[in-house]
């Protein structure tokens, strides 16, 4: 085999490999955001609560915790608001379940106070100054919901509006597990 043919063969092998890689990439989705924390310990936080006081994740140790990042101007957040309020009403007295709504916007503090009143929201709302907590949870948009089990491990990450029935069944499952 001459040198030219030898080089051509090498190049051909490389190109075939490249084409296979490209063909394999066709049709694969490239949604990379979110969910990195699933199966990892939930980052701790202690955040100022609406109406004074603090919301502290450590205070809820041993409980199943639902954390929801939301905002008053985000339309899918408005859609799931009723469901979240229902979820809160169901579990507010349950010693094994806690719920936190974290507002995902630095400047929103004042608007949120009005909004919570007009929408008659009663679930606990916390603010996240500088969005440090959101960054620790790998949040990229709103709404995003995290389910944390009794051992403080993130079990689920939900992007977009929640499915109430599904979320409730998850909570029951984590409550029941040791």
């Amino acid at each position, binding site marked *: 085999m001459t040198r030219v043919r030898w080089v051509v063969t090498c190049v051909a092998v490389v190109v075939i490999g490249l*084409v296979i890689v490209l063909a394999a*990439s066709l049709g694969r989705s490239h949604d990379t955001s979110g969910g990195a924390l699933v199966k990892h310990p939930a980052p701790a936080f202690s955040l100022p609560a609406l109406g004074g006081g603090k919301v502290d994740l450590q205070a809820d140790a041993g409980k199943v915790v639902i954390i929801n990042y939301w905002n008053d101007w985000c339309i899918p957040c408005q859609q799931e608001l009723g469901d979240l309020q229902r979820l809160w009403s169901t579990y507010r007295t349950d010693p094994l379940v806690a719920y936190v709504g974290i507002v995902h916007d630095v400047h929103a503090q004042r608007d949120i106070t009005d909004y919570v009143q007009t929408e008659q929201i009663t679930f606990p709302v916390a603010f996240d100054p500088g969005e440090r907590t959101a960054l620790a949870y790998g949040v990229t948009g709103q709404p995003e919901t995290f389910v944390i089990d009794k051992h403080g491990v993130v079990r689920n990450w939900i992007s977009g509006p929640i499915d109430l029935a599904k979320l409730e069944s998850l909570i029951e499952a984590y409550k029941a597990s040791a």
Partner: protein
Amino acid sequence: MAGPGALGDFAVVGGAVSAALGAGTLGLGLARRNSRLVDAGRRFVAPMCTAAVLTFVAMEWALFSHDYAIKYVANNVANATPGLFTFTAAWGALEGSIILWVVILCAYVAITMLAFRRRRRDALVSWALLVQYLVCLFFFALMVGPARPFATQSGLIPFDGNGPNPLLQNHPLVAFHPPMLYAGYVGMTIPFSFAIAALITGRFGEGWLADTRRASLIAWGFLTVGIVLGAWWSYEVLGWGGYWGWDPVENASFLPWLTATAFLHSVMVQERRAMLRVWNISLIIATFSLTILGTFLTRSGVINSVHAFSQSDIGPWLLSFLGVIVASGLGLIAWRGDRLRTPGRIDSLVSRESAFLANNLLFAAFALVVLTGTVFPLLVEALNNQQISIGAPYFDRMSLPIGLALLFMMAVAPVLPWRATAGEVLRERLQVPAVCGVVAMAFVVVLGYRGLGPVIAVGLGAFCVAGIVRNFAIAVRARRRAYHERTVPALARTVRSNPRKWGGLVVHTGVVVVAIAIAGSQSWGTRREVQLKKNQTVTIAGHQLTYLGSSIVRSPQKATLKVRVHVRHGGDDFGVYAPAISTFPGSNQGIGTPSVHVGLLNDVYLSLIEAPDDQGRVTLQVGINPLMMWLWLGGGIMAFGTLLCLVPAKRKQPDAVAPPERELATVGAGT
């Protein structure tokens, strides 16, 4: 039913049929050596080109008549879209961009056939035409099949369309940037088709290079201008203050540019010394393949990109086409392998031909870096099922040494004679330029600029430009002495005597200007996010910015929030600039429009990040970007140099009184 849609569909099918019939007849004729069939095959060029033009006309007709029954029209224009952006919507999305591609391709084919009309019986030209037919057929087939531009809506016909992508109705550059870029991309088809024809006919001497010299240069010039305009568009529209982000879309245009640049240089070695035949054929096949690969990467949705491109199912088609091109190219080279052996050899390491070799190695390495960085995340995903990203820091680090080495070669190579050099000659020729380079470095260091990369770039740039000026000065002086001409006519005649060489040196000057502008703007700029109350002033890198107030302008096309900022620098009043955020109906995403004060040394780049909050504070991103104007000017110089290269050379002057050969350092093959 008559109308733009019917006309368009008819034209697309007509074009595909013409290309297929042309290819079939010509192919049969060539295989059977039947010159009547070959002649008949050539006749399909005219109907094919007519069909391409008709397709484009039909698309414009549909867009301007707001024929919303056609999906493309409904998705890409609205009633309120201004005329210019209605016109440019014809290439704003995938299907339309293929129309543009085909129109330009057919124009190239037609012009090539006109240029070769005297040699139409030549087998090389006929085989090249066959390859061109097949490429045309592929793109027409795309429009018949997976990317049908005149597909109609199902269901109700809307009263108004969605309008163009907001980013594509914000700046008039969309009228120029894509056509230029495509003229560059598509133009590579011509040298590619001749290279394939050379392989098939076995005439891979220097003939096909001479035949496609102009086409390659023209395509390269368009590609250069297209890339620079793309950078400019990014800078003016996207609002992040930069112009090049090593985004896959940008890399897709840069890859063929790199290999085409290597090709333009290495053909000179083949012309002069009959070496590097396989290499040249491979380079042009690689260039054409890379244009298709780039189109695949940006249009198939395999890679995330900042540029909002519509995704579609033409991916498998483009990938198959790429496979066919590479396979046939490699197959032909392997088949011809023995006969491609080159008779020439390199006599000395310090010679023009080895400088060209080094140049080619550097360009090939550069292309490999860009290709690796672009495709590597896909490889990792395929092997490890893990998402990784490769971005600007990787490309910057890898390309800096290559870029500096290229600048160095650009300074030294043009003074190297062919075959061999004595060190003494080299030292003498480089003496003055080297002093200039060191003085330039000292100048920027004394002014307080720091950073290894940019300071070396300035030094090498001055080194190179001084060498070019010296070259021109010597040639002009020789002419003045020999023919008693004045300076300007002497300069003009010098260029006319060998346009390719002198034009090439002008292009080099442009490259140096671009390189220094890139180095300076990357290293010596400042970027700050500031929050300002009304009438508050902030000072950034010596520039005072005062926020004056905001206003909202509404038009049917868009609603725009403008923020007025007064910019001053020391005693100079630069006036009031108004960065804005626009919202377009049919899109809830706000599109920022930066406002730029363009200066000789520094641009002041303002983009609005947040509208006034409840306390009336706005958030602005302020960039002080050095040397930006020189980037665009450098691009202009490169384009001008390319034009000079295309000037027809004057027949040889009486050689007896030509300037002494010793001083005639040449860029091109000195004919």
